[in-house]
């Protein structure tokens, strides 16, 4: 199934960010020999191309604050300008590489901050749901920050939610914003136990849980995240104690 244009754009920049992070690109060019420089410039063909921003459409970011929208638009335009100067059948020059890397870093910075802010809000919304449903049953909850790191958005902290549904302790644990086939994932686990229920957010922003624990994501059936599925998770995980 084709992904939304906005997500395609974000994914393309994320992949380029990952390629830019590769050690051979980060190396100090003053200490490299000619072959190494040549390899780096050839490697730049993977990210120094207008294709990286071909799915960008300002309308997809219309809900962002005006200054964020402008910064993103400018970063895309600047990157596109330098990337368009590299012939598709030739490696970039050293100057093109240096400027392209700088422009891409700026694009990563702007887009990464937008994606991270949205992802943190999504985490908060899921955990607020769980806190509310837990409170209805007088289960205590507590948020504990964990350190995470992902391409494009870099290092960040996000809260795990601990749920004390006596006598058991459950953890609602954000896994990543970038997950194949989804726009974010959580683990819902019972401690101590090896068993986990996977949650994911689809391209429409709807969260699902993979119930039928033990059958795996591929064989289980996804159920929309709501009070009933939250309680089903608690029940299914409790069976593994």
């Amino acid at each position, binding site marked *: 199934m084709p992904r939304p244009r906005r997500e395609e754009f974000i994914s393309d920049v994320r992949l380029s960010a990952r390629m830019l992070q*590769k050690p*051979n690109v980060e190396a100090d060019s003053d200490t490299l020999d000619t072959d190494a420089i040549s390899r780096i410039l*050839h490697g730049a063909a993977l990210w120094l191309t207008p294709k990286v921003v071909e799915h960008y459409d300002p309308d997809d970011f219309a809900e962002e604050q005006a200054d964020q929208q402008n910064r993103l638009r400018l970063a895309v335009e600047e990157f596109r300008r330098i990337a368009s100067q590299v012939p598709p059948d030739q490696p970039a020059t050293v100057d093109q590489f240096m400027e392209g890397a700088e422009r891409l870093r700026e694009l990563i910075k702007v887009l990464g901050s937008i994606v991270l802010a949205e992802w943190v809000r999504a985490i908060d919304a899921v955990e607020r749901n769980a806190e509310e449903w837990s409170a209805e049953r007088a289960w205590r909850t507590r948020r504990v920050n964990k350190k995470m790191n*992902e391409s494009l958005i870099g290092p960040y902290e996000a809260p795990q939610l601990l749920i004390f549904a006596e006598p058991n302790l459950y953890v609602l644990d954000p896994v990543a914003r970038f997950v194949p086939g989804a726009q974010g*994932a959580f683990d819902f686990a019972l401690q101590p136990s*090896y068993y986990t229920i996977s949650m994911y957010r689809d391209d429409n922003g709807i969260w699902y849980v993979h119930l039928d624990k033990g059958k*795996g*994501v*591929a*064989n289980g059936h996804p159920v929309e995240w709501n009070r009933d599925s939250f309680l089903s998770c608690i029940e299914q995980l409790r069976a593994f104690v």
Partner: protein
Amino acid sequence: MIKRQQRIEWIAAVAREYLAATSAAGLLATQLQADPNYGDSHGWEARDGVAFKTNLESTYVVRLYAEFEAGLRDYWANHLNRTTHPPMVQLLPFLADQRISQDRLEDADAVREYRNYLVHDESGEPPPDMRTFTVAEAKSHLCHFFGRLDPDW
């Protein structure tokens, strides 16, 4: 022991075996300095000893990956009850779908590509866009991926 942990242990055992082999290569190098013809009585020549040391890391990356692939195929057949035999380039993203981070999938897939280069490509240098891995790095990436699968089957 649950199956997932057992499989991870087997991958980790290959990495430990590599450390033992590294120590053995060091001892062998010392022996060859003292007696360059040491291998003659064992059916090999000095240059084979050099090749052994040179190729040690690559050999164990290939072995690590073989253990990883065996584990995934066991999971595929005996946990997901699939009778097909998809290539690993398809199996990895399928298993990662909706549960393993894109970064971790790409790390494991990069190890797969590097392993394929080691097995199939006779040219001297990996392509510029290829990531290369030490045994420790490959073990970390492959175990991380495996650790995200269902625990038992």
